[in-house]
C-alpha cells in the first residue's frame, strides 16, 4: 500500500477508522455536485451535435491537444522550479525583506493574463521596449517571442505564485524536529533540505503544481495574445466565430478528459504517505538558515522573478496612465467597481474555504472511493475555460432557477465552482500535517466530531485556510468571462472595467482600475500574512 515508506513513527495512525459523520459526507457531496454541473451541461449540449466525432478525430484537434499538454507540463515544471526556492528563502532564511518579497511573489496572481500578456509583448516583443534599448547596439529585432516560448513564459510568470503560496504554508507548519534530527546526525543543510524537508513538502508542491497545470490548460488571455494555438483557444474560436455551442462543448469535454488525466498523474505523484509529526499543535519556531554570501544570488533570483512578473506589468500600466494624462485623458474614479470586486471576491473566498473543509477532511481522514471522487470532482471547474462555466450556469439558471438568475448569489456559486480547488488543495495539504492523534485525544475527552473539527483541527490549520482564501480572493478578483455572463446587470468589477477599456484601446482608462486592483491585492495579502505572525 505504501509507495513511499515513511518513518514508522509517522505512519502508525488510527487503525480502526470511524465512518465519517453524515453531515460531512452531505456537505462534501454538495460541493462535488456543484463542481460537476458544468460537465452535465456540456454533455446535454454536446449530445445534440452531429458530426462531432469528425471534429474530435481531426488531426489538427489532436495536434492542438498534444501541444497544449506540452505547454501545461512546461509551465508546471518551470513554476515548481521558481516557486519552491522562493517559498523557501522567504520563510526559512534570513533573506533581507522577506515579508516584502513574499507579497511581491504572490502578487502576480492578481494580474489578469490579458494585461500581463500585453505587458510582456510590449517589453520583450520583437520590437518591444527592450529592443528599443538595444537599438543603438544594432539589434533591430529580438528573437521570436510569439508561440510556445512566449505563452510558456507568460503563463509561468503569472501562475508560479500558486506553488509559492501552497509551499510556504507547508514550510511554516513543518515540525522542525525532523530537520534538527537530520542535522544532529551530521547531515549538512543542503542534504537535509533534499532528504528531509523536500519529501515533506511533496503534498504542497503537488497541490500547487496541479493548480498551475490546470490554469495553463484553461487560460485564454495569455495564449491568444502570445499567438499560441492552444486547446482553450480552439474552444473560444468555436464560440466566437461560429456561435456553435455544440462543437465547443465537444472540445470542452475533451479538456475535461485531459483534466482527469492530470488528476490521475497527480494522485500518483502525491504518494500515500502521511506527513504529520507525532506531536500536537504546539509549534516551536524553526531555526533560521543563515544565507551568508548566498544571500546575493537569492536576492538576484527574487529580483528577476518579481521584476518580470510584477514590475513589467505595473510599469506598462503606469506608462499607459502617464501617456494618457499627457494627452489630456481624465482619470476615471472606479470606487464602486472596486467595492464590488472586493465584496464579490471576498465572499467567494469565504465560501470556497468553507467548502474546502468537508472535501479535505473526507480526503485526508476518511480515505476511500467516495472521498476521492468528491475531491476530484471539485477540480472539474478549474480546468474549464471561464466562458464554459459561465454559459453552463446561464443555461441551468435561466431555465430552472429564474429567481436567482443574474443575482450575486448565483455569481458566487459560479466563482465557487471555478475556484474551490484552489482552497481544497491547500486545506488538504495542511490537514495532512496534523496528526489524527490530536483529534483522537479530543474525542476521548468527550468532544463530538463537529466540535473537534471546530475547536481543534481548524485552529491548527488556520494559516492554510487563510492562504487558500487569499488565493481565491486574488483569482476571483481578476475573473472576467463568468463575471460578464453571470453578474447582476450593471454590476461592474475592476476586471470588467480593465477589460472594457483595453478591448477598445482606451489604455489610459484601464490604468486606474488596474493599479487599484494591484493595490487592493497587496493590502489584503499583507493582512493575511500578518495572521501568520512570522517572526
Amino acid at each position: 500500500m505504501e509507495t513511499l515508506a515513511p518513518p514508522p513513527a509517522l505512519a502508525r495512525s488510527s487503525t480502526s477508522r470511524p465512518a465519517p459523520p453524515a453531515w460531512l459526507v452531505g456537505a462534501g457531496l454538495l460541493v462535488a455536485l456543484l463542481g460537476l454541473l458544468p460537465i452535465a451541461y456540456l454533455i446535454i449540449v454536446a449530445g445534440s451535435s452531429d458530426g462531432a466525432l469528425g471534429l474530435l478525430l481531426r488531426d489538427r484537434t489532436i495536434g492542438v491537444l498534444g501541444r497544449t499538454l506540452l505547454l501545461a507540463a512546461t509551465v508546471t515544471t518551470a513554476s515548481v522550479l521558481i516557486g519552491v526556492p522562493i517559498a523557501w528563502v522567504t520563510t526559512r532564511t534570513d533573506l533581507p525583506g522577506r515579508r516584502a518579497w513574499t507579497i511581491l511573489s504572490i502578487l502576480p496572481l492578481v494580474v489578469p493574463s490579458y494585461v500581463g500578456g500585453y505587458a510582456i509583448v510590449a517589453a520583450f516583443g520583437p520590437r518591444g521596449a527592450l529592443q528599443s534599448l538595444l537599438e543603438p547596439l544594432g539589434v533591430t529585432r529580438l528573437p521570436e517571442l510569439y508561440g510556445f516560448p512566449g505563452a510558456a513564459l507568460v503563463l509561468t510568470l503569472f501562475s508560479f505564485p500558486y506553488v509559492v503560496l501552497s509551499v510556504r504554508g507547508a514550510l511554516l507548519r513543518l515540525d522542525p524536529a525532523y530537520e534538527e534530527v537530520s542535522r544532529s546526525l551530521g547531515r549538512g543543510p543542503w542534504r537535509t533540505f533534499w532528504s528531509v524537508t523536500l519529501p515533506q513538502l511533496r503534498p504542497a508542491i503537488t497541490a500547487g503544481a496541479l493548480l498551475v497545470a490546470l490554469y495553463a490548460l484553461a487560460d485564454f488571455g495569455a495564449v491568444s495574445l502570445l499567438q499560441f494555438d492552444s486547446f482553450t483557444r480552439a474552444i473560444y474560436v468555436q464560440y466566437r466565430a461560429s456561435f456553435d455551442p455544440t462543437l465547443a462543448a465537444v472540445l470542452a469535454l475533451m479538456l475535461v478528459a485531459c483534466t482527469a488525466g492530470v488528476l490521475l498523474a497527480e494522485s500518483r505523484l502525491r504518494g500515500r504517505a502521511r506527513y504529520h509529526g507525532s506531536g500536537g499543535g504546539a509549534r516551536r519556531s524553526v531555526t533560521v538558515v543563515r544565507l551568508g554570501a548566498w544571500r546575493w544570488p537569492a536576492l538576484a533570483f527574487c529580483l528577476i522573478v518579481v521584476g518580470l512578473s510584477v514590475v513589467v506589468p505595473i510599469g506598462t500600466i503606469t506608462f499607459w496612465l502617464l501617456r494618457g494624462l499627457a494627452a489630456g485623458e481624465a482619470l476615471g474614479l472606479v470606487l464602486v467597481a472596486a467595492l464590488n470586486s472586493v465584496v464579490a471576491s471576498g465572499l467567494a473566498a469565504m465560501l470556497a474555504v468553507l467548502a474546502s473543509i468537508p472535501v479535505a477532511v473526507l480526503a485526508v481522514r476518511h480515505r476511500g472511493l467516495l472521498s476521492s471522487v468528491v475531491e476530484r470532482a471539485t477540480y472539474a471547474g478549474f480546468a474549464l475555460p471561464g466562458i464554459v462555466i459561465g454559459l453552463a450556469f446561464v443555461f441551468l439558471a435561466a431555465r430552472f432557477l429564474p429567481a436567482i438568475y443574474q443575482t450575486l448569489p448565483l455569481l458566487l456559486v459560479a466563482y465557487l465552482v471555478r475556484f474551490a480547488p484552489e482552497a481544497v488543495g491547500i486545506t488538504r495539504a495542511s490537514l495532512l500535517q496534523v496528526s489524527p492523534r490530536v483529534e483522537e485525544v479530543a474525542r476521548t475527552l468527550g468532544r463530538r466530531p463537529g466540535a473537534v473539527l471546530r475547536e481543534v483541527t481548524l485552529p491548527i490549520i488556520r494559516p492554510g485556510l487563510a492562504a487558500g482564501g487569499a488565493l481565491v480572493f486574488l483569482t476571483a478578483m481578476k475573473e472576467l468571462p463568468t463575471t460578464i455572463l453571470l453578474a447582476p446587470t450593471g454590476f461592474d468589477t475592476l476586471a470588467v472595467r480593465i477589460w472594457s477599456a483595453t478591448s477598445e484601446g482606451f489604455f489610459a482608462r484601464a490604468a486606474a482600475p488596474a493599479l487599484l486592483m494591484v493595490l487592493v491585492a497587496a493590502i489584503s495579502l499583507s493582512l493575511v500574512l500578518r495572521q501568520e505572525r512570522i517572526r
Partner: protein
Amino acid sequence: MNQLRRLLPIGAAMALVLGACTSEPAASDPAASDPASENAETGTVTIYSGRSEELVGPLLADFTDATGIEVDARYGDTAEMANLILTEGENSPADVFFAQDAGALGAVAEQGLLAPLPEEILGAVDERFKSPAGEWVGVSGRARVVVYNTDTLSETDLPDSIFGFTDPAWSGRIGWAPTNGSFQSFVTALREIEGEDRAREWLEGIQANEPSVYEGNNPALDAVIAGEVDVAFINHYYLMQRLVEDPDAAAANYFLTDGDPGALVNVAGAGILNTAENDEAAREFVEFLLSEQAQEYFATETKEYPLIEGVEPDAEMPPLGEIGTPEIDLSDLSDLEGTLELLQEVGIL
C-alpha cells in the same frame, strides 16, 4: 478560526442584502420612475451591449435623458453576448441586442430570437446595412482599412488592391487577426465579390507571406506602431482612438478604393428580442440609435460612419462615397460557416 466564524454571518448577510438590491429595480413599480418625463411609456429597457461601456455608455445615458426610460445595460464582448442570448433562449431577460458586428446579429436572428423591426426604423438606413427580413438594423459603419507604419512606408508604396499584398515582397511584413469578426466578414465579402477560388487564392497568398497573427485589432495596431510588422488589416477607428491617447503614433490608415473588397464597410447594429418584455421601450431605443443626436455621437465620439442622411462623418475620414465601398449587402454575408470552413482548410484557424 474565531475570526472566520465572526465574519461568516456578516458575509452571508452582505450576500443577501446585495442580492436584494440588485433584483430590486426589476421588481419595483415602473410607474415610480421619473414623473417629469413627457413620454407615456417610461420604464426600463434591458440592453445586452456587445459594445463596450467606454464606447457607448454616454450614449445610453443620453437616451435616458431624452426619453426618461431607464437603461439596464449588460456589457461584454459581442460574441459572448450573442452566446449568452443563444444560451438563454426563450428565457432571456434582454430586450435589445446592441452588437458590434452584423455576424453576431445574424447568428441570433437565425435562431429565430429577433422580432421584425417596424418600417419607420428600417426605412432610415440603406438596404446594404440591414437584414432583408428586417430583424436587425445597422446603426453605425466601420470601414476595413490597411493600417501602415509611417516610418517605413508612405501611401504610394501601398498596392491599389487588397490582392497586391499577396506579392512576395510583403513577406513577413503583414499582421492580421483572423479570429476577429470583422475580418471574417471581410473574407465572406471577398468570397461573394470575387468568388470562392479567388478568395482562397488571396488567403493562401497572404498565408504564404507568413503574416503575424494577432488576437485582435488593437494588438495588431500595436505591432504596426512598434514596427513589428509594416501593415495590418483592421477597422478604421482603432487608429483614430489611439491617436487621441498617443498623438505621435507612427501609423496611418489607408482606405482602398474602387469597390475593392478590402474597403468593406461593416456595421454595428441592433435588434429587438421577440421575448422582449418592454418592446415599446426597446423600439424607442433602436429609433434613438438612428436619431440625429446618436448619429452625431457615432461620428464625433466613436469615429464611425453615420448611416442616416444628413449627418456627416468626422472630417478626417474620407466620406463613404469617396472610398467606393464594394457593392454588397451585409445580409449577403451570412455564410459565416463557409468562411470558417475555408479559413480552416487553408490552415489559418
